[in-house]
C-alpha cells in the first residue's frame, strides 16, 4: 500500500462491486462514508467498520478498511469490543433499521448510556430488504410485508427519540438523496467524541414502494438551517425528534434532517482511564505478581 499524501474517497472502496439493486439508497450512503473519511484524513488502516446482516450491513464488505461483517443484530457489541481493545481506532457501525432496532435493539441503550466512542450509522429503508420484504421496526403503519399481507398494524420505532432517551451524545438524521448533507453529518458524527448515532433515510426501491426517493425528495427539512442551533438541549431535541414520524400521519409534515443533539461528555474511555490511574495500571506488570498473591503468606 503506497503512502498517499491526499486520501480520496476511492481509497476507502474495495474492489468488490456492491450487490445492491440499482437505485438502492445505500449507494449514496457508501459514497458519503468514503467522502467523510477522506475529508477527515483518517487512514483506512485505522478504521474498523462493523455491521450485522442485511443489504445495508454489506457496506463494510464494500469498503477498504478493516471490516467485521458480524451476525444479525450484533454489530454494536462487537464494535464496543474493538474500541475497548484499541481506543485509537475509528470504529463505525454500518447497519440497517432491522438489524439495529429489531434483533439488535437490546444493545443500543447500553452503548449509548455509556457514551462509548463509536459512530453508528443506521441505513433506514423502513423495511427488511435482504430477506425480501417484511416490515421492519421503522416501517410505517399499513406497509405491506410478506408476513403481514394485511399491512403493518404496528406503530413504528422512532430511532432518533430512542437514541436521545438512551443518552447518546450525538444524534442526527440525514438522507441518502443528499450526498453533501450526509457526508457533512457523518463527518461530524465521527469527529464527535462519544457515542454518535445517525439515522440515514436510505430508500429501498425494490421492496418499499412507499418510502421512496420520490417521496422524500421534497419532504426533508434541515432543522439546523431552520434554526435548531442549541444542540445541547435534550428537551428540545426530543421535542423535535417526536415530530420525526409525523409525516406518516400528516401529508404536510416534513421530515427533519440535521443534528438534533450534540454534547461533549466524558466518554467511557475517559472514565476507564480514571479508574486505571487509580489502579496504577501498567502493561509492564509481570503477571507472576498475580499468582504470587495467592501464596499463603506469613502474617
Amino acid at each position, binding site marked *: *500500500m503506497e503512502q498517499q499524501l491526499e486520501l480520496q474517497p476511492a481509497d476507502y472502496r*474495495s*474492489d*468488490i462491486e456492491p450487490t445492491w439493486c440499482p437505485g438502492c439508497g445505500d449507494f449514496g450512503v457508501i459514497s458519503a462514508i468514503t467522502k467523510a473519511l477522506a475529508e477527515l484524513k483518517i*487512514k*483506512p*488502516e*485505522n478504521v*474498523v467498520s*462493523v455491521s450485522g*446482516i442485511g443489504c445495508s450491513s454489506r457496506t*463494510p*464488505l464494500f469498503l*477498504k*478498511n*478493516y*471490516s*467485521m*461483517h*458480524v*451476525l444479525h443484530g*450484533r454489530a454494536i*457489541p*462487537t*464494535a*464496543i*469490543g*474493538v*474500541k*475497548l*481493545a*484499541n481506543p*485509537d*481506532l475509528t470504529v463505525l457501525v454500518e447497519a440497517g433499521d432491522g438489524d439495529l432496532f429489531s434483533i439488535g435493539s*437490546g*444493545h443500543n*441503550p*447500553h452503548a449509548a448510556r455509556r457514551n462509548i466512542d463509536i459512530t453508528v450509522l443506521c441505513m433506514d429503508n423502513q423495511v427488511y430488504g435482504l430477506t425480501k420484504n417484511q416490515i421492519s421496526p421503522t416501517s410505517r403503519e399499513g406497509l405491506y410485508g410478506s408476513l403481514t399481507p394485511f399491512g403493518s398494524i404496528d406503530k413504528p420505532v422512532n430511532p432518533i427519540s430512542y437514541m436521545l432517551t438512551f443518552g447518546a451524545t450525538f444524534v442526527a438524521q440525514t438522507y441518502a438523496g443528499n450526498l453533501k448533507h450526509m457526508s457533512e453529518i457523518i463527518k461530524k458524527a465521527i469527529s464527535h467524541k462519544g457515542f454518535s448515532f445517525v439515522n440515514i433515510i436510505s430508500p429501498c426501491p425494490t421492496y418499499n414502494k412507499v418510502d421512496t426517493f420520490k417521496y422524500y425528495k421534497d419532504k426533508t427539512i434541515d432543522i439546523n438551517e431552520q434554526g435548531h442551533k442549541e444542540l445541547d438541549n435534550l428537551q428540545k431535541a426530543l421535542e423535535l425528534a417526536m415530530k420525526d414520524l409525523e409525516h406518516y400521519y400528516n401529508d404536510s409534515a416534513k421530515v427533519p434532517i440535521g443534528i438534533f443533539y450534540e454534547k461533549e461528555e466524558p466518554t467511557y474511555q475517559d472514565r*476507564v482511564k480514571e*479508574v*486505571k490511574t487509580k*489502579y*496504577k*495500571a*501498567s*502493561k509492564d*506488570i*509481570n*503477571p*507472576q505478581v*498475580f*499468582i*504470587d498473591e*495467592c*501464596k*499463603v*503468606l*506469613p*502474617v
Partner: protein
Amino acid sequence: MSFSLVIKIGGEGGEGVISAGDFLTEAAVRSGYHVVNFKSFPAEIKGGYANSTVRISDEKLYSTGDGFDILCCFNAEAYAYNKKHLKPGTVLVYDSSDFEPEEHDGVIMYPVPLSDIAKNEIKAYITKNIVALGALVGLFNIPVESLKDSIKAKFSRKGEKIVNMNYQALEAGMKYVKENLVKKDGFEFPPPIGLKDVVIMEGNQAVAKGCIAAGCEFYAAYPITPATSVGNYIVEDLIRKDGWLYQAEDEIASLAMAIGASFAGVKAMTATSGPGLSLMSELIGYAGMTETPVVIVDVQRVGPATGMPTKHEQGDLYHAVYGSHGEIPRAVLAPISVEDSFYMSIEAFNLAEKYQMPVIVLTDAAMSLRAEAFPTPDLSKLNIVNRLIYKSEEDKEQKFIRHGRFLRYALFTEDGITPMGIPGDPNAIHAITGLERQENSDPRNRPDIRTYQMNKRFKKLEKLLEEDYDRFIEIDAPYKDADIGIITWGLTASITKEAVQRLRSRGLKINAMYPRLLWPVKEDVFEFFAKSSKRILIPETNYYGQLATVVKDRTHIRPISYNIYRGEPFIPKEIEDIVDFLMENQEITEGRFTPEHVYGEKAYGLI
C-alpha cells in the same frame, strides 16, 4: 496416606459455615498439609442448608473422600441432613444450645453450646463459626497458630479489634472443650509441617489467574452463578495489567465484544454457565467461521434451562462439542482439578491463538468453589502462545497479497493456518464475514471454494492432533491386561483417581485415562488405551453419558457408561462400587448404568 481427616461443617447459609471451612482449609495449608474442600449452598440468597467439607492429609488429595470423620453441626437442619451418614467411629460436634441429637450407636458426641458462647461470652453471635473452630482445635489439636494466622490475614483489614474478637472466640471454643469434654475419639492432627512454596486457590480463581497469566487483556462478563466469580477474581488483576473487564448487557453481547476485541488484536475471553453458553451458540459458530481466537469458560451447573444453579453437573459437553448450527473447528478443554484449572486456562488461550478458533473450557459448580493448595506456578517456565500475525516485511514475495488485497483466508498454507492482520497495519487491511468467502474475504457461493475453505478450517484440527494433543491426555495404565479401564473427565476424573488408588490397593487391575482435551479426539490414543483393558468404564455426572457419545462417535470403543445426575459429584466409593459391580457381572461389556443397577434401590447419594 498416613494421615487423612475429613471435617464437615453444616448449618444455615449465612452463618459462617463456608468461611469456617475456608479458615480450616487455609490453616491446614499454612501448616503444610494437602487439602481439598467441597462447598455447597442453596441458590437462594439467604437461608437454606449450607455445608463445607474439608479434607486434610499429608499426601496429595484428589477428593474430599466418601463422607466425613467429623461432623460439626451449627443447627438441627444440618444434623437432620447428615444424621444418616453418622457411622460408628465418626464424631459429631454440635451446637448444644440449639438442639439435642438422637442416640447413635458408636458415634462420639461432643455437645458445645456454640451459640451461647458466641452470644454470651463474645457478645457477637456472628463469631459462632469461630467458636466452633476453637472447639475443633481443642478436640483435634488443629494447628492453632496457623488458624490464627488465617484469621488475622482475613480480618486484619477490618482492624485489630475484629481480629482480637475472633481470637477470643477461638480461645473460648478451645477453653470450653478443654474444661467440659473428655476426648473419646482417636482423631488427631500431627504437628504442623510448616509453609512450603504453594498457592491456595479456588477453582474459579485458578481460572482467572490462568487467563491473566496467558495474557488475557479483555474480559466481557455477564453475571451468572457459578461463573461470576471468575470475573470477581480477575477484574482487578486485569485493570492493573492495563486490560479491562466489561460488564455487558447479556451473554450474546459478551461474546460479541470478546470477538471484537480479539479482532482488534487482543487476547479476549468471556466466562459463563450453561444458559449463557446456549445463548452464545450462534457467535461460537461465527468465531469458528471467521477464525477468530476466543476463549469461553463454561462453569457448568445443573441443566437444562435454569436447572439447579449452584449444583454440580457435567451436562454441557454435548453443547460444547456439537452445539451451534453448521460445523466449525473448535477445542473443548476440561480441567480435572483446581491446579489443572490454572494450567488449562493458559492452554485454552494457547490453542485459541495458535489455531484461531473458539476454545471452550468446561469446569463446574463444585470445582468453582473447591480450594486446593498446589506448587506456586512459575510463569517464566510456561509456554505462552501468541497468534500468527501478518508482517509485510516477512512476506517478501507478497504471497498473502493478491491484486492489492490481503488474503486473510488464503488456501495455500499447508496447515490451514493463515496470518491474521491487525487493525492499524496498512498492509493487512481485510474484512471478516460469517459468509463463505474466497481467499480475500469476498463472499462466494461457489461449491469448490466452499469445499476448499471448509477443508482449510478443519485442517487446523489435524495439526492440533499432531502437535498438541498428546500432552492433554493423562494415561495411568500400569496393567497390560487390566480388568477395567476407566476413562473420565473433569471433576469426576479427580474423584476417580482416588477410587483407582483404592481399587488397586485391593488388588484390582484398573487402568485409567484422564483426557483434558475432549475435542477434537485422537482415535488411536483412545484405542491404544482401550487395548490394555478388557472393558471400558466411563463415569459421568450427566444423563446420557456425553463423553461416552463423543468416544463412540470418534473411536471404536463401546464403553460402559455410569451416570448420576442428582446435582452432586461422585464420591470415590461410588466409583469403587460400580467397578465391584462390574467385576461381579462379567457379562456386562457395554451399556448405560445408573445407581439403580448397582444398589437395586432408589438411593441417590449424599445430600
